[in-house]
Structure formats: structure tokens, C-alpha cells
């Protein structure tokens, strides 16, 4: 490794360390509510109530489940299944299904943007 290479590695490590508190601050600290954003709007999910949420994505249905206070993506019609393998949504760690244009994250929504695009059952 050259000196230039080491500079790049250090720069990336610094970027990672700086971005951690920024991401946490950005995500907020409230973990009792999660937000699911889909192509047709967004909805807030109360993590206190166990329920399933069916979200209409660009390529099909993405299923989320609130289980024991955690929001998980349990199934998706996308090919790579990154969203299903991401595990539970936590602060600073959203679940993203890019092919379906759906993202779920533990952060409050802004007032007046609570149009439902999910079906609870």
C-alpha cells in the first residue's frame, strides 16, 4: 500500500466515524413508532401492536410485520431479497426494498403526511 492508499483508507474510516452520530441524530431517538414509505405515500406504524402490513410496491407486494415491538420485512417480490435479510428496523438502520421503492425506518413522520398506503390485518 502506498501513502496515498493509506490516506484513502483513513479518510473512509473518518467518514464512517463521523457519519455514525450524524445518522443517529438524523434518525431521531423515538423507537415506539416506525414509518413505512411506499410509492403511494407513507404510513406510521405503532410498534406496540403486533400486526402485519401489506405495502404495494412498484414490482409487487412487500409484507412487513410488527412482532414484539420490532418491525421486520417478512416477504417481498423482489429478486435479491436484501430487504428480507436486513432483519428488524432499528434507529439508524432502515429496511430498504429499492426494487419496490419501499423503505421502513424508525423515525417520526412530518405532520400532515400520513396518507395510508398499507393494509393492516
Amino acid at each position: 500500500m502506498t501513502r496515498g492508499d493509506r490516506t484513502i483508507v483513513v479518510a473512509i474510516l473518518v467518514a464512517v466515524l463521523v457519519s455514525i452520530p450524524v445518522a443517529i441524530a438524523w434518525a431521531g431517538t423515538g423507537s415506539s413508532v416506525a414509518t413505512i414509505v411506499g410509492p403511494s405515500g407513507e404510513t406510521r406504524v405503532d410498534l406496540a401492536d403486533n400486526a402485519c402490513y401489506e405495502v404495494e410496491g412498484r414490482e409487487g407486494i412487500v409484507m412487513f410485520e410488527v412482532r414484539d415491538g420490532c418491525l421486520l420485512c417478512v416477504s417481498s417480490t423482489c429478486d435479491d431479497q436484501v430487504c428480507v435479510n436486513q432483519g428488524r428496523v432499528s434507529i439508524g438502520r432502515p429496511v430498504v426494498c429499492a426494487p419496490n421503492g419501499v423503505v421502513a425506518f424508525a423515525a417520526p413522520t412530518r405532520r400532515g403526511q400520513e396518507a395510508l398506503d398499507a393494509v393492516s390485518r
Partner: protein
Amino acid sequence: MPYRASGADARTVSMVALLLSFASCVAYAEAVLLPSLPIPGVRLGFANIAVVVAILVSGSRSALVVSVGRVLIVALATGALGGPSFLLSIAGALAAWATMSMLASRGAVFSPIGWSVAGSAVHVVTQLVVASWIVGSTAPLLMLPLSLGASLPAGLAVGYSAGLLVSRIPETTLVFGH
């Protein structure tokens, strides 16, 4: 049939074709056989060994052919051509290629390891930005610390592997006009 000669000689075309087929096979195997990592934008990325080798042995233009060609071939094979996954792949590949080419043009300041590490990081950041654009939310950017951190060992592994591979190729094979 009219024949139009191009600037590329047969050895360059052969090497680019060889690297493109290697990159496509590895990327396809990675997409189909290996389980996806639970971090958006992060794959092991061993196909990028071919892109780094292409920059080393035949220049940036050849590397662009390998990088974009690999994305197109794998997208065709997996049925993802034109979809959001394809958009993520092509954006990441182009950004990584541009970064690695720029660093390679700086001579001996950076080695293939540095190109690869920087390319890997830029690939991840680009994919998260594009994913944010696709889903219409900045939430995917919250994955930046995790994704950027994971890109570092992947970039180191790819850069080291590419350097090792080139060191094992006989020098007579690597005489190209850039």
C-alpha cells in the same frame, strides 16, 4: 460487407473479452449463488477484480467496457434489465469506474488497492443516493455508516486480489498499447 478498422488491436480485444467474461461469470455466481448481504449496496464485489485488472493492463476505456458490459450481461441473465436494481448497479459501476480511473491516472501515488478501496466506497455511496432517489426518501442514507464500513474490507480484498492476479500474469502477455 464494408469493414471499418478500429483503434483496438486483437490482443486488447481478446484481453477485454476475457476479463468481461470473467467479471460476468463471477458477478452472476455472486448474484445467484451467494446469499445477499443484509446491507443495501454492499456485495462482496469480486467481479470488480476484472475491472481493476483491466485498468492495470489495458487502460480506463477497456475497464469501462468490462464494467458496463458486466452489468448489462448480468442484468440480462437475471431479468433485471431496466429495473431499479439495474439502475442501482449501473450507477454504482459507473461511479466506481470513474473514481478508479481518476486515481489510476495519478501514476504511482495510488496502488490498485487504493483504487479499489475508493471505488468500493464511491460505489456504495452512489447506490445509496440512487436508492434514496428511487424510494423518494432520505432514509436509505441512514445506512451510510454501515455500508461504508463494510465497503472497506471488500475494497481491500478486491484490490489485493487484482494486484496478486496481475503479478502472476507473464509480462509478455501484458504488452498493450494504451
